[in-house]
């Protein structure tokens, strides 16, 4: 998730979007690349979602020339061509493990609810997970801890402390109408969503991102 510089030059931003969407063509270990433009007021503007088969696959991405030469050209803080900017949210990389391509949404609207559950008890975290698991509506619904933020170097070894945003509820909807229908429903989850999660025990902060999935090269390949 990237904040863009203000102003960010349109041409290089388009090149970054293309590089991210096209990444799997150059780095076979990168699966299901898709990009999206966040529609909420959260100052994260560009989202790149993608997957890896394993930590070993992630490590091959990390040392791939395309990563260093092209993607980092636009995002690394000291690169003269950087088009991304700083944000005070403590957010950049967010990731989790899942047994299959649980996240897959062929087309439609992605909604990410990022939660700060650092003060939550194990029971409160479980209760929120239960809320997500029993909510009808989203075509995709994954509640998971943010394991990648602290293990970004090799996908396994902690290189930082507990991330500020500890959990994610990733949702997918067929279209905007389905998303609005979900938010308008009765029930504990919808109520929590409508109140910005302030009423839910254990939630210190919550933010939301929404974007239309823009599938990149090879999107869906992980399901073949």
């Amino acid at each position, binding site marked *: 998730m990237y904040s863009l510089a203000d102003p960010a030059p349109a041409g290089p931003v388009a090149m970054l979007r293309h590089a991210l969407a096209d990444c799997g063509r150059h780095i076979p270990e990168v699966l299901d690349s898709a990009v999206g433009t966040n529609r909420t007021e959260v100052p994260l503007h560009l989202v790149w979602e993608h997957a890896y088969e394993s930590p070993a696959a992630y490590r091959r991405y*990390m*040392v*791939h*020339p395309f990563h*260093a*030469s092209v993607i*980092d*050209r636009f995002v*690394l*803080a*000291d*690169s*003269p*061509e*950087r088009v991304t900017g700083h944000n005070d949210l403590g957010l950049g990389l967010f990731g989790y493990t899942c047994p299959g391509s649980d996240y897959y949404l062929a087309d439609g609207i992605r909604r990410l609810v990022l939660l700060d559950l650092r003060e939550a008890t194990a029971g409160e975290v479980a209760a929120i997970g239960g809320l997500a698991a029993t909510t009808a509506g989203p075509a995709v619904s994954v509640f998971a801890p943010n394991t990648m933020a602290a293990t970004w*170097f090799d996908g396994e070894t902690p*290189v*930082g402390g507990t991330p500020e945003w500890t959990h994610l509820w990733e949702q997918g909807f067929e279209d905007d109408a389905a998303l609005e229908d979900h938010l308008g429903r009765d029930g504990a989850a919808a109520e929590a969503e409508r109140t910005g999660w302030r009423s839910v025990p254990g939630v210190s902060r919550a933010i939301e991102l929404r974007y239309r999935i823009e599938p990149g090269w090879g999107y869906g390949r992980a399901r073949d």
Partner: protein
Amino acid sequence: MIYIVDRVQVAPADVPAYLQALSDSAHPVLTEAGLELESCRATAGDLGLDVDVEVVWRVESFEVWNEVRRDLVRHPGWRAWAHRAEGLRRGGSRRFMFPVDLPVGG
């Protein structure tokens, strides 16, 4: 060997400040992380144009670069360098380059 070539455009009046930032912000942090300074060159400052400053760093491989990168992004001095440079340059580029054989003569 990989050569990381940063070429930036700087207003003539800002060239001394940019070189100073390279010297006391970038060089200590980047060399500590494992990069080696290959060269630093600039175009003339009296052409009525921005000055191009080209700095070339070298690193053994992308595997080593990945470790350098890990150490840089965790180093507060690196972010300070990035912020300082951003305020001085007007544009630029970064390329990872490699020696190539150039068949010349016979």
